């Protein structure tokens, strides 16, 4: 169906305008963050919010990197990597069972797990805190891994189940004829073919967990165990905040994600699209 000239012109103008607007919405806070990270605390108060820094001063970076930032960074990397690997493995196995195996209550169990998406994590904080203390895991990196995996599973199982349902049944049957049992079918056929779905959940959960605050805040208390989102607390007193230092922490925290996106943009977008289309 051909569109009218008015609609064509509107589309030609509206799409770039909306695109530029959205670019501004996402970029301006980022620019503000980076620019302020190069200002001294005094300059941040005295100059205009949008003024460029007087000099390219790395003093905030020096100060942050000489503090416990690298410990937080190491903790974040460890917690996120272990959690994401576990999420991928557990959700892939669950998805394979839901997508391919016939058993009683398959659909009911799938529904129950997916329903986990609607549970706000805040109402689970107190019970999880108590359980963590009872298990002797409080204030350790491992205290975070359990809740991170558990809260990420519903969406991950949902995405991967839908993805695996699209894999032709004949591949599974060919594998059975080739002598594969359920485990071999999963590890040798379904898991390698679920690459796009797995990268979708790895990217999605990686970003969510890298920025996760509330569990890290509740389940850890010491510098040696806390993760990056809590690093900003080191620069916030009861009555004052070192805004440039905080924004330096935030800049450094988001840097790995920005670098990952810059180098893997194509794969990330493809992964997200594959997941969305299959799902």
């Amino acid at each position, binding site marked *: 169906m051909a569109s009218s000239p008015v609609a064509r012109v509107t589309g030609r103008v509206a799409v770039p305008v909306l695109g530029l607007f959205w670019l501004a919405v996402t970029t301006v806070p980022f620019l503000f963050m980076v620019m302020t990270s190069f200002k001294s605390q005094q300059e941040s108060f005295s100059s205009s919010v949008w003024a460029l820094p007087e000099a390219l001063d790395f003093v905030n970076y020096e100060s942050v990197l000489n503090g416990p930032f690298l410990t937080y960074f190491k903790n974040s990397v460890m917690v996120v990597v272990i959690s994401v690997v576990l999420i991928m493995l557990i959700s892939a196995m669950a998805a394979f069972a839901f997508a391919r195996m016939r058993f009683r209550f398959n659909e009911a169990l799938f529904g129950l797990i997916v329903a986990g998406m609607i549970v706000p994590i805040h109402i689970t904080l107190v019970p999880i805190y108590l359980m963590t203390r009872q298990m002797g895991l409080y204030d350790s990196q491992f205290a975070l891994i359990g809740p991170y995996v558990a809260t990420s599973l519903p969406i991950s199982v949902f995405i991967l189940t839908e993805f695996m349902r699209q894999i032709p049944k004949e591949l599974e049957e060919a594998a*059975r004829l*080739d002598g594969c049992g359920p485990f071999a079918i999963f590890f040798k056929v379904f898991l390698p073919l679920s690459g796009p779905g797995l990268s979708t959940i790895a990217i999605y959960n990686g970003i969510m967990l890298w920025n996760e605050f509330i569990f890290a805040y509740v389940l850890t208390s010491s510098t040696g165990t806390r993760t990056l989102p809590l690093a900003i607390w080191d620069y916030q007193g009861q009555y004052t905040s070192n805004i440039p230092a905080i924004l330096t922490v935030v800049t450094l925290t988001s840097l790995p994600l920005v670098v990952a996106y810059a180098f893997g943009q194509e794969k990330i977008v493809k992964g997200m699209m594959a997941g969305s289309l299959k799902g």
Partner: protein
Amino acid sequence: MTSITLSGVNKSFGANFPVIRDVDLTIEDGEFCVFLGPSGCGKSTLLRMVAGLETGYSGQIRIGDRVVDKVEPADRQVAMVFQNYALYPHMSVYDNMAFGLRQAKTAKDEIDRRVKDAARILQIEPLLERMPRALSGGQRQRVAIGRAIVRQPKVFLFDEPLSNLDAALRVHMRSEIATLHRNFPAASMIYVTHDQTEAMALADKIVLLHAGKDMLKHGSIAQVGKPLDLYHRPRNLFVAGFLGSPTMNFLEATFVAQEPVGARVVLKSGEELTVPVDGSTLAAGAPVTLGVRPEHLSPVVGPAPQTLTRKVSAVEHFGEYSFVYLEGGTSAPLIAKVPGDGGVKAGDSATYAAPADCCHLFDADGIALNHI
């Protein structure tokens, strides 16, 4: 022993959807058997039951001397070629072919030898390192066949393997499958298709299957036999109508009397014909159906016995032959397949001989009367 025997096999999807009914069938050692039938007749289901991919049926399936109802697909010594090839997309051609052997813990040298032998037979040696996505449809099908060959199975199972290929490639691959059968004479083959040309060209034995109400009434198997037996001696109206293109002409008639040379019938249009069948069980006046294939109607000039005279409604020319459509006397037009341009045009009146030996007679239940 690679014979396959199905005894009293029945299968339903759920309680109310029978799909296979009362199948008793033996496929002999080294035989090429084709399961043929319309959509929904259960031919693929039957094949999958032999493969071990369908469970929950009653009856018994034997491969050789062994009852395989409880045997895993991989242990049945069968190999299957799927309609959509089912190649593992993340593996190279070599790995696709070697996968089953690796699962069976076959020695590396032996795997390499078998894969390369199969690749040589199928002329896919240059493709061994390619991924399936880099292959054409025909090449993928060859790889799928190669994957079956390397397992050295006792039974090859083909589930509509050519239906995703274009017409020219289909003909080519059909001859390759026939060659494969000659190269592996000890292996039995079951081939599922809805294409009667493939069935007629390849089969030692055709199993024609009923669908729907016919299956419920008469069981799944409509007729089993050599291709030309089914073509020349169909057991009932369904078989007669399924094989042949264009389909057999059917004319409503009334049984008049049984004579030494056959049953004499009169058509609704008044012509009397004699069909060399035993109609002694019929009463005079019983309704019957006369069947005659379009290629068996031949033009004649002037009045003669055993002929049909009709007005020509249309003529389709195909160069080597023509289809002459004749109206009157039947609900569907009568078709004659004649050499050349047919020598007639629409509006002409034309007479065609229906040789007695080529005529078939079916009783009111659609069962063919035996030829004498």
